[in-house]
């Protein structure tokens, strides 16, 4: 079947980490025990279990079964096409959107690029500012007194509620959308990095003093690496929050992007285009999450639960 093979290939080309919860799913105890003695038989078993789970083709069985049932329900008329298009129709729509530029929607890749650009600018700036603010208020009392109360107060403002205000302030162009993504990436990054810096074991700070490290060296060798696990969790949350912000923000008077496709499709009651856009969002989310997991595994190799 055309639709299933397309979905399957999309899933299959994901990096192993992109399947959510693939790693936590393997018994963590086995990994911990295994890495302690990397040469032992239990280690080998744990590694095998890990590899098996990571490249777990069998994890595709149940999603594919759902898609198959969905197609069956559509083909038999149980699921009316006016409510939800069949997987085959959706795949066909996606194919058409890629190979032809429709006057209503443009091409899928152009929309994707426009959305990605919006997200990437907002996300990169949000994460950078978040980390910077966290370092400033994490490392200095003055910085904390100045920055932290403002950020804590702003964080409790529901971002979605800011949309009308953003339109008043910044109009309906690119700026409010990018800012919206930026803010949503900033807060998780700031909060987690700040908590990470403050949560570094004070006994390691003492060790730094005993070893005669200068303040700058303590920050470089102890504080910042110690905050990294928490900061990477922040990054993961920032990805999720910023994508959500993108999906919502993009549907406000957009003239390009996936959100624009969705609003257009809504007017033309074309639910298969909406589904295509949502699936593209989902695949993007999976890929980005996988990238962060890969980064975590590389950067946190020293942690037993991320071991070799």
């Amino acid at each position, binding site marked *: 079947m055309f639709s299933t093979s397309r979905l399957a290939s999309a899933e299959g080309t994901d990096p192993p980490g992109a399947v959510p919860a693939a790693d936590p799913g393997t018994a963590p105890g086995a990994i911990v025990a295994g890495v302690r003695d990397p040469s032992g038989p239990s280690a080998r078993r744990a590694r095998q279990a890990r590899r098996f789970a990571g490249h777990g083709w069998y994890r595709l069985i149940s999603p594919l079964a759902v898609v198959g049932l969905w197609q069956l329900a559509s083909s038999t008329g149980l699921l009316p096409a006016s409510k939800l298009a069949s997987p085959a129709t959706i795949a066909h729509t996606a194919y058409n959107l890629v190979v032809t530029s429709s006057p209503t929607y443009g091409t899928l890749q152009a929309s994707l690029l426009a959305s990605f650009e919006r997200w990437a600018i907002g996300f990169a700036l949000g994460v950078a500012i978040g980390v910077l603010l966290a370092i400033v208020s994490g490392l200095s009392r003055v910085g904390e007194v100045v920055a932290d109360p403002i950020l804590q107060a702003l964080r409790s403002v529901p971002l979605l509620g800011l949309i009308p205000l953003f339109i008043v302030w910044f109009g309906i162009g690119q700026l409010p959308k990018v800012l919206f993504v930026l803010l949503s990436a900033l807060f998780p990054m700031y909060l987690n990095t700040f908590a990470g810096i403050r949560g570094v074991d004070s006994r390691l700070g003492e*060790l730094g003093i005993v070893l005669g490290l200068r303040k700058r*060296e303590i920050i470089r060798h102890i504080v910042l690496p110690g905050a990294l696990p928490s900061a990477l969790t922040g990054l993961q949350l920032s990805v999720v929050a910023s994508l959500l912000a993108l999906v919502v923000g993009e549907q406000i008077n957009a003239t390009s992007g996936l959100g624009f496709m969705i609003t257009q499709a809504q007017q033309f009651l074309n639910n298969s285009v909406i589904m295509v856009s949502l699936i593209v969002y989902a695949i993007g989310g999976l890929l980005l999450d996988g990238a962060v997991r890969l980064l975590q595994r590389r950067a946190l190799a020293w942690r037993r639960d991320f071991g070799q």
Partner: protein
Amino acid sequence: MAPRLRAVNGSAPAAAGTTSDGIRPGGLATSEISRGAAASVRGLTRRFGDRAVLDGLDLDIAPGEFIALIGRSGSGKSTLLRALAGLDREVTGELSAPGPVSVAFQEPRLVPWKKVLANVALGLRTADPEGAARTALAEVGLTERASAWPGTLSGGEAQRASLARALVREPRLLLLDEPFSALDALTRITMHRLVLSLWSRHQPAVLLVTHDVDEALALADRVLVLGEGLIAHSSPITLPRPRVRGHPDLVALRLQLLTELGVPAGDAD
């Protein structure tokens, strides 16, 4: 490393004079800070709230001397060690430890995100920190674990890495804060031998804080008992090492130390 001579919390040079009130119970005569000592402490006081954990304590540690400091929990053993390590800024009195001073903590405190070799070399300001770290690791028998993450070490290995990190700084004073208390009995015996051999090779003065009387008797030149915020008791041990545990002198001294610690005779073991 610069010598450390501190008059803490404004208790100025005058402090040496104000504490010369004769001989303290079981302690040492107070005098000027001894210049040649590996560490010298006069009238050291540390309060936590109303309670003075250290109450005008005097102590001299001779160069190369191995001292074991015992005391009931809460008696201020670790407080004294932290003061000597320069980790406690709230102490008053006079303290001199003309460095370098190294510490091995109860938990090995290896930096988890640095491999063993990098842990040992951390903060080392010699020409070839890595080479020195490798030599130190070889001395503690940990060469093959140089590129391991600390999280993968056993308790004994981690303590050996911690010892290597302390020794690579060629300390004049080595502070050991119950470094063997979390190890199993067999590993502890191995570690005792290792510490003694490292000590005789490098000749630092050692202050070993422990709650284990037998450990103190096996290792130290002098056993100090901390009580009431002062050195309440001091026993030199002249027996050559390695010491046999059942030696009559040690058995007698053990009983005496346990009595000092407030464990009545007969209740011991």
